[in-house]
């Protein structure tokens, strides 16, 4: 207690005392003149928020005199931003909200204002009931109904979002604005260490977002937000129980916030278990049978997590800390190798029933500590200081035959400080300082990347200004210094050979002694991002947005330093630090002659929106030219996976244990595409939405890139009244025939999902019962962007029943 009050005194002494406290009062109504209950009024630049009462009235006290901006938001309405000048107590303000059929939720904690309707860059925020309806066990699957976002569906056990055709090291996954710090950017079979069921909102920034998040966000950002560090102490919470038929899933989750005037406390937790999921056809693509009893083997999952947080609340801000423990154990389908017919009893193991077959499973553990705070100032320059910092200890083990095969570790520290200033000649925004350090190591058979230590320092400026009532200009710049150090980069003599000539084989057999060359590698990158955007409300209710950016990205350790078998992708991966040299008849892998350079994305985004009325729509078109794009090419060579687990050499097909060799190289790539959403509020209860998205990815000199999501369009019909909410989703995925030489075409398919929920208000506790049906036509759906396309289609028809309560 003593310590905290000391902090309070210290913090208090930094704050200038308010000179005059003013009060404003008013009413919020809709376009028909009816009161709006529960509308939220925020006073920008302060921690003050309030909501309207049952008469649509609000009171804001303790305001200082001067110019203030009010943000008025309510579900189903477009946001209203109103600047007012507070000179003395004002009591008869009236704000009119216009209906918006497209849900508008702000991005939290951004130095500039961002939402689906108001920013120059395209943003989608999934929150509330929509988030709950779409949440899945994995992050990519949770977001896949979001326009512009596809999943790389990895058999229900892992998935990562693909934003406009980009993923992996180009899409940043963050938790409350801080890097999620797992190893999901490295392999498709590595799960993302973030959970949707306890999140309050998931924000998606499409297109380059390096300005806010740095190098890893050149393709976009997914930010999972929850209230783990509470910013207020209003008692509230949510709990839910759910089961699902296709994978026999059971899920229980809760989150709760409470506290006193000065202290707020938060806790959340979840537990989920699912079995191997059912599919409508034989999971392997080359089998044609249809039937009832097909399952994707080894796709079971079990996870749980628990988070607690506490904050100290003071007049002008808060400071809080949270700790999370995240555990996940999941099967890795398609991750089998070696000779399965091993009949002697050497490899049996005791600790897990998994040992009865050759299945591989992953055991993931993460501890995350986050410290967050915000202080608002009334001083001359500084308006607000935002602090976010985190420490993450991540580890996952891939367990084969009950023994630990490969262990991946990531220890990271991160600090972000935003210094926001008071409006200066109409400019609003601030400076952001960012530090991140992560030590990544992998040990074991699949440690295809050597241990590395990367460190980033960054300085960014983001500003926006209303040039006049209808024109908003947003500009930003960021400079980073990224160092990537690895002192044991290995270059083995690769016994690779092509399958059509085998004389190289013999040459290698003559070697009695192999040398593994070892390098100490030190990269230093200075990526710079420049971005500008303009939003023009050319006529009331409509706007046009244009965004231009030039973003640079430092390549990741995997892209540069890899050398080894990666079972998750079914390939032998070699980083861009190395290159294939051809000398006469002999092919040899050595250090590359090319300079290692930054990847540069030049992106243009155009947005056209109708923001209010019975019908609203958003159209986005983008053109993104990425120079020096790091990608893998097939060398045509094969190398031993080195993953033979049978301890005697049965005579199996000599090629079963070989993997194709892929090497990273760079080329210029062009991505272009669009996203469209149209929503029509037909009556107060009925709404129809249609959407579509498309991306075309190709090399500038011709040629396609692999696993690009196909054209997609779909519709959502909803009926919502006081007690019942019903949704019908129909989504069509077209076939994909823009493929690389080592891919196959994927057929299109249509998914039909429906859900109904019924609210039973009980006292002051809202409870809703719901039933969801997914893939109702039980269709065979193979995901082109999935590495497991040919062995793990999407789940078959499935029904889910659940109950959820809010207090």
């Amino acid at each position, binding site marked *: 207690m003593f310590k905290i009050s000391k902090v309070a005194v210290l913090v208090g002494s930094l704050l200038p005392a308010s000179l005059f406290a003013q009060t404003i009062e008013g009413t919020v109504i809709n376009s028909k003149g009816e009161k709006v209950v529960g509308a939220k009024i925020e006073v920008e630049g302060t921690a003050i928020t309030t909501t309207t009462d049952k008469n649509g009235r609000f009171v804001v006290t303790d305001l200082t005199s001067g110019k203030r901006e009010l943000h008025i938001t309510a579900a189903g309405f477009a946001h209203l931003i109103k600047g007012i000048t507070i000179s003395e107590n004002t009591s008869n303000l009236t704000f009119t909200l216009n209906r918006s059929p497209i849900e508008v939720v702000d991005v939290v904690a951004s130095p500039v204002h961002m939402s689906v309707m108001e920013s120059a860059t395209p943003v989608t925020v999934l929150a509330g009931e929509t988030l709950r309806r779409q949440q899945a066990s994995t992050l990519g699957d949770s977001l896949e109904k979001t326009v512009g976002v596809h999943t790389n569906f990895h058999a229900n056990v892992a998935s990562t979002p693909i934003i406009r055709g980009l993923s992996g090291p180009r899409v940043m996954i963050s938790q409350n604005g801080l890097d999620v710090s797992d190893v999901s950017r490295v392999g498709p079979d590595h799960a993302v260490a973030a959970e949707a069921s306890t999140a309050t909102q998931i924000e998606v920034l499409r297109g380059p977002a390096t300005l806010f998040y740095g190098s890893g966000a050149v393709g976009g950002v997914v930010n999972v937000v929850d209230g783990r560090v509470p910013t207020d102490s209003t008692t509230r919470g949510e709990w839910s129980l759910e089961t699902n038929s296709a994978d026999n899933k059971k899920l229980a989750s809760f989150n709760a916030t409470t506290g006193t005037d000065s202290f707020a406390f938060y806790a959340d937790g979840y537990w989920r278990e699912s079995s191997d999921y059912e599919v409508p056809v034989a999971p392997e693509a080359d089998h044609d049978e249809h039937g009832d009893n097909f399952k994707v083997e080894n796709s079971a999952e079990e996870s749980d997590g628990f988070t607690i947080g506490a904050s100290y609340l003071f007049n002008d801000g808060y400071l809080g800390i949270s700790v999370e423990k995240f555990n996940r154990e999941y099967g890795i389908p398609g991750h089998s190798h070696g000779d399965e017919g091993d009949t002697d*009893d*050497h490899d*049996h*193991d*005791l*600790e897990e*029933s998994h040992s*009865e077959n050759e299945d591989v499973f992953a055991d993931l553990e993460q501890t995350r500590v986050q410290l967050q705070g915000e202080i608002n100032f009334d001083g001359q320059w500084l308006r607000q200081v935002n602090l976010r910092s985190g420490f993450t200890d991540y580890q996952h083990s891939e367990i084969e035959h*009950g*023994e*630990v*095969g490969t262990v991946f570790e990531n220890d990271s520290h991160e600090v972000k400080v935003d210094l926001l*200033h008071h409006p*200066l*000649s109409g*400019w609003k925004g601030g400076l952001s300082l960012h530090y991140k350090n992560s030590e990544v190591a992998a040990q*074991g*058979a*699949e*440690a295809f990347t*050597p*241990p590395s230590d990367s460190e980033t320092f960054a300085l960014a*400026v983001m*500003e926006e200004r209303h040039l006049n009532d209808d024109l908003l200009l947003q*500009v930003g710049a960021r*400079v980073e210094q990224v160092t990537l150090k690895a*002192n*044991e980069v*290995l270059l083995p003599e690769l016994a690779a050979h092509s399958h059509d000539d085998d004389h190289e084989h013999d040459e290698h057999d003559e070697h*009695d*002694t192999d*040398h*593994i*060359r*070892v*390098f*100490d*590698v*030190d*990269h*230093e*990158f*200075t990526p*710079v991002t420049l971005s500008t955007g303009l939003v023009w409300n050319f006529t009331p209710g409509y706007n046009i947005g244009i965004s231009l950016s*030039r973003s*640079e990205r430092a390549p990741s350790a995997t892209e540069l330093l890899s050398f*080894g*078998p990666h079972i998750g992708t079914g390939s032998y991966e070699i980083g861009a*630090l190395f290159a294939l040299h051809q000398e006469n008849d002999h092919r040899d892998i050595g*250090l590359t002659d090319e*300079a*290692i*350079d*930054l990847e540069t994305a030049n992106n243009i985004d155009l947005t056209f929106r109708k923001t209010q009325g019975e019908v609203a729509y958003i159209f986005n078109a983008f053109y993104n030219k990425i120079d020096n794009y790091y990608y893998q090419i097939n060398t045509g060579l094969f190398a*031993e996976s*080195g*993953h*033979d*687990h049978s*301890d005697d050499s049965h005579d199996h097909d000599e090629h079963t244990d070989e993997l194709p060799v892929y090497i990273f190289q760079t080329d210029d790539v062009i991505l272009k595409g669009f996203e469209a959403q149209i929503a029509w509020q037909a009556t107060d209860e009925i709404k129809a939405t249609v959407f579509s998205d498309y991306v075309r990815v190709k090399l500038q000199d011709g040629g396609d890139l692999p696993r690009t999501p196909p054209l997609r369009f779909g519709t959502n019909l909803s009926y919502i009244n006081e007690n019942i909410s019903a949704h019908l989703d129909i989504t069509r995925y077209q076939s994909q025939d823009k493929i690389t030489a080592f891919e196959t075409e994927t057929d299109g398919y249509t998914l039909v999902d429906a859900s109904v929920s019924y609210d039973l208000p009980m006292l002051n506790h809202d409870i809703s019962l719901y039933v969801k049906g997914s893939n109702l036509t039980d269709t065979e759906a193979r995901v082109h962007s999935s590495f497991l396309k040919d062995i793990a289609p999407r789940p078959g028809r499935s029904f889910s029943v659940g109950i959820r309560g809010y207090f």
Partner: protein
Amino acid sequence: MTNLFKLNVLAGLIGSLILTGCGDAETTIVEQDPIVVDDGHDHGDDHDHDDGYTIESLGRLAVLSAETAEAAIFDLDDNELLDTFSLTYDSNSLTTSPGFRYAAIVNRSDDNISFIDSGLWREDHGEHLHDYEQSPALSDYTLMGSRPTHVINHDGQMAVFYDGDANTGTSASVQVLTDSDISSETSELAGIEYSVNMHGVAKPRGEHLLSTLRRDDADSTSNAKVLPDQVGVYHFHDGEYELEQTLDITCPDLHGAAQNHEFVAFGCGDGVLIAHQHNDEYEAEKVANISELNGLRIGTIYGHEGSESFIGIASGHGGGQAILVTLNPEENEMETIDWQPMADASPVSYAFAFGGEHFLILDNQGYLTVLSQHSHDGHMEWEFEGRIDISEEDVSTMPDNMSFTLTVAQNDHFAYVGDPIAKHILQVHIEDMEIEGDIELNFAPANISWLGIVEEGEEHDHDH
């Protein structure tokens, strides 16, 4: 004015960024000494690569002190002391973990087993075998159970038989574990919980576990009722062992067991019970005691993966001359071995040597006798091969409750003999029958165990 100034600074900053235009990338590569891979072995250097490949080492030696509650770990490459560890309890016995990475300190009277990590172990990383060489360390992992007595290793698994305690009404139990359970400190081990105490033994065999069964005293054919008289076959599935079969031949006063690649042998009052796996079933037969045993019974059996026959030991309680027999499961035969003992020699320790071709007998007169396996017309016999005098001391000065001790390397033809009188450990080459080195101690060794990286899958089946 100040507003304007601030804005200018901001604009200047942005402007300078735009001027710098694109960023910069710089790469520094320094080539280090290469790692030499010769036939998959890393010769010579003993430094510890984080990333790879094998280490050539004679191994390490755990030595339990007979004087204090301490254990020492020696490096056998240079015979240097690496570290000494204080133990919680007195009067321990010593064995190894199934993978020979850990020394297992078994304390029967205090119901406790603790482990010391030798720091030397191997992992199979698929494309290469990955050896680790680190400092020895006391593991936090301990096993607890009532009266741990027979600790059996076989093919990567350890089965600990806890006898339980009739005085406290504690039942017997079994726990099965591997080296990775020790390193990952697995809290819940699979095993068996009995409903009665017994002095029993369990043999891990992959997914099976052959373990003794004690029946109601009224039904038991044992004279000493604490000794079991039946063998159960347990099968591991869904995380637990389930009794699937009880062998149909009884084994009164069961004591001592061993196994090799095909057979599991149990010593009984009336002979030796041999179990043989056919598909998922075990078949049992009994080799009857022969008259040459002079009324003694086989109470200890040794087996080795590399040897088709077992060696059984019959001796009276309190020492006396031991009778060694060959047990040949294929021929259902028991035959005495003439090991040509010296006068008054009474064996204190036995072991199969590396590869299973030799069998070693260490006796109280300070001799190490080497037997070899010979085949005569397809008939396997153990014959006297030679003898090494390992002590120059007066063996009558052996302190009470101490004896010579023996352990065998699992990577080369070396045996190590602990001598409490001379306070040293001798390194003996079995094939050459020569003493090649010694480690001087400043205490009397109570027990010694070889630790390290096993070569060529040779594993030894301990028993006592």
